[in-house]
C-alpha cells in the first residue's frame, strides 16, 4: 500500500486545519484573559483576570449558571433513570415490537429538533407550561434520549454473553447477574452517555429559548445575550469558564466511544 511519502503536503494540511479548527476557539481563550486588546495588535497589550472578577461578582451571571446546573442535572438524571433500563431491555430481552421501538428512538433523530420544539412550545403555551422549570426539564430530557438509548444499548450488546451465561448456569437470578456481571462492565459506557447528554443539554439554546424564556434564563441564553455586547471579554470569560471543564469531561468519554461506534450509531 502506498503511504504518502511527502510529509510536506501533510504539514500544509495540518497547518490549515489547525488554523481553521483551533483559530476561533483560541481567539476566545485569549480574549478571556485580555484586559486590553486593541486593533491592530496581534496580542493583548494587557493581560489579567479583571473580567473574571467582574463576571463572578454579578448575580445576573451566577443565577443563570445555577439555573442551568439544576435543570441539566435533573433532566440528565431523570433521562438516565428511564433510558438505561430501556437500553438493557433493547439489548438483552426479547419482546414484541422491540426492533420497531428501538428504531423509532433512532429515527426521532431525523426530525429537525427546532421544529419539534416549536410544536412542543405551542402545546405548552396552552397548558401554561412555558417558562416553568419542569416544562424545560421535560424538553431537555428529549435531547438526552438519543445519547441515553443508543450508546448504552450498544454497550450492553458489546458485553460478551458468555460471562452472563456462566452466571445463569450457576443458578444466579437475572437481577443478580445484571448487578454483579453486566452492570460493572457497562458502567464506563453508561457514564459516557451521561456526560455527553449533560454537556449537550447544558449548552442547548433552542429548548431553553422556546420553552424557558423569558421567565427562565439559562447559561446559554445569557451567553446569547452577552455575545452581541460591546465588552467582548464577558462572553469570552463565560465561554472559557463553562466550556473548558465540559471539554475535559468529554475528552474522558472518548476512550469509551470508538469512531466506528459513533459512525455506526448514525447508520453508516
Amino acid at each position, binding site marked *: 500500500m502506498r503511504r504518502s511519502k511527502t510529509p510536506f503536503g501533510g*504539514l500544509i494540511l495540518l497547518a490549515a486545519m489547525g488554523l481553521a479548527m483551533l483559530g476561533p476557539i483560541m481567539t476566545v481563550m485569549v480574549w478571556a484573559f485580555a484586559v486590553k486588546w486593541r486593533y491592530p495588535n496581534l496580542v493583548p497589550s494587557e493581560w489579567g483576570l479583571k473580567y473574571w472578577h467582574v463576571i463572578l461578582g454579578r448575580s445576573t451571571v451566577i443565577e443563570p449558571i445555577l439555573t442551568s446546573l439544576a435543570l441539566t442535572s435533573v433532566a440528565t438524571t431523570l433521562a438516565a433513570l428511564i433510558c438505561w433500563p*430501556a437500553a438493557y*431491555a433493547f439489548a438483552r430481552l426479547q419482546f414484541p415490537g422491540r426492533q420497531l421501538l428501538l428504531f423509532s428512538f433512532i429515527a426521532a433523530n431525523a*426530525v429537525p429538533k427546532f421544529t419539534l420544539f*416549536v410544536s412542543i412550545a*405551542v402545546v405548552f403555551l396552552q397548558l401554561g407550561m412555558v417558562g416553568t422549570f419542569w416544562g424545560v426539564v421535560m424538553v431537555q430530557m428529549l435531547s438526552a434520549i438519543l445519547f441515553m438509548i443508543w450508546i448504552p444499548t450498544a454497550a450492553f450488546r458489546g458485553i460478551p454473553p458468555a460471562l452472563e451465561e456462566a452466571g445463569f448456569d450457576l443458578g444466579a437470578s437475572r437481577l443478580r447477574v445484571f448487578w454483579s456481571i453486566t452492570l460493572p462492565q457497562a458502567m464506563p459506557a453508561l457514564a459516557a452517555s451521561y456526560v455527553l447528554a449533560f454537556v449537550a443539554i447544558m449548552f442547548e439554546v433552542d429548548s431553553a429559548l422556546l420553552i424557558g424564556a423569558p421567565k427562565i434564563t439559562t447559561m446559554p441564553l445569557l451567553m446569547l445575550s452577552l*455575545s452581541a455586547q460591546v465588552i467582548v471579554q464577558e462572553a469570552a470569560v463565560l465561554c472559557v469558564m463553562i466550556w473548558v471543564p465540559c471539554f475535559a469531561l468529554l475528552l474522558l468519554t472518548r476512550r469509551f466511544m470508538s469512531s466506528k461506534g459513533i*459512525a455506526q450509531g448514525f447508520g453508516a
Partner: protein
Amino acid sequence: MVDDLTAPVGSRGRGQMMGQGFAGLALVAAPLVLLIVLVLFPTVSMVANTFHVTGEGGRAFSLAKFAAFFADDYSVENLRYTLVWTVISCGTALSISLGLALYLRFSEGRIATMIHALSLFPLFVPAIVISYAMVRFLGPNGLFQLLLEKVGFTGYTTPYLTPVGPYIAFVWESLPLPVLVLSAGLAQVSDHAIEAARDLGAGPVRIFSQILLPQLKRSLLIGFALIFLGVVGSFTVPYLLGPPAPEMMGVYMQRTLGNMRPEEAQVQAVILMAVAAIVGGFYIATMLRNQRSR
C-alpha cells in the same frame, strides 16, 4: 444498531420468554411515553392544526394557512434562503470531509493522527461556543483579519452578518460526522482491490471514481442527510452570525413565536418538517439498508 440478537442471553423455555416480553415492554415504557407525549402528540396536533381553520362554522379543513405563507414574499424568501445555503453548506462540508477521509485512509503517522483529531474537534464544541468564537475570529478586526494583515493582505471584508458568516460556521461544525461516516465507508474497501487496480495501471482519479466512489454512495448519502438535518433547522449559528434579513427558518420561527403568532410559527415548522422529511426519509432508508446488509 437494530440488528437481531437471535438468542438472547438467559432465555430458556416459553414461560421465561413470556416473562421477558412483559419485562421488556415495562422497561421501555417510560421513554416511550416521553416520545409519545413530546414528539408524536405535539407533531400530529401541529400538522392537524395547520390544515384546519376555525371560523364561524367551527373547524374546517383548509389550505389557507399554507396559501398565506406562500403568498408572503418575505416568508418564501426565508425558505428559499434557508434551502439554498443549507445545500451549499452540505456540498462544501461533504467535499472537505471526503478529501479528509481520503487523506486519512491513505496516510498514517503522527500528522494524520493530528489531522484526524482536528477534524473531530467540533464534536466537542457546542453551537453557541463556536458561533461566539466565529464572531471574534472572523468578525471586523478579528484575529483572522489581524493575521492576514500581518502577512500583508489588507483587503479583508468580514463575512460576519452576511450569509457567508453562518455558512462558514455550518461547514466548521458539520465536519466530524461525515468524516467518521466516510472513513467507515472507506475502511471497507480492501487494500488489495486498490493495489490490484494500481498494478493494472489505474491512476488515482480512476481508482477514486471506479473503486472508491461506488463503495461510498451510501456513506455520502448518510453524510449529506446528517449535515442537512443539522443545518436546516439551526438557530444559534444564523442568529449570531447571519444577516438580519433574510432569516434562516429557525430564526424566523423563533421570532414568529416570540411575537405571539403561534399559528404562523406552526405553519413554518410544518413546511420545514416536510422538507426535512424528504431528506430524513432517504437517511432512514439508507440506514435500514446498511443494517440489513451488515
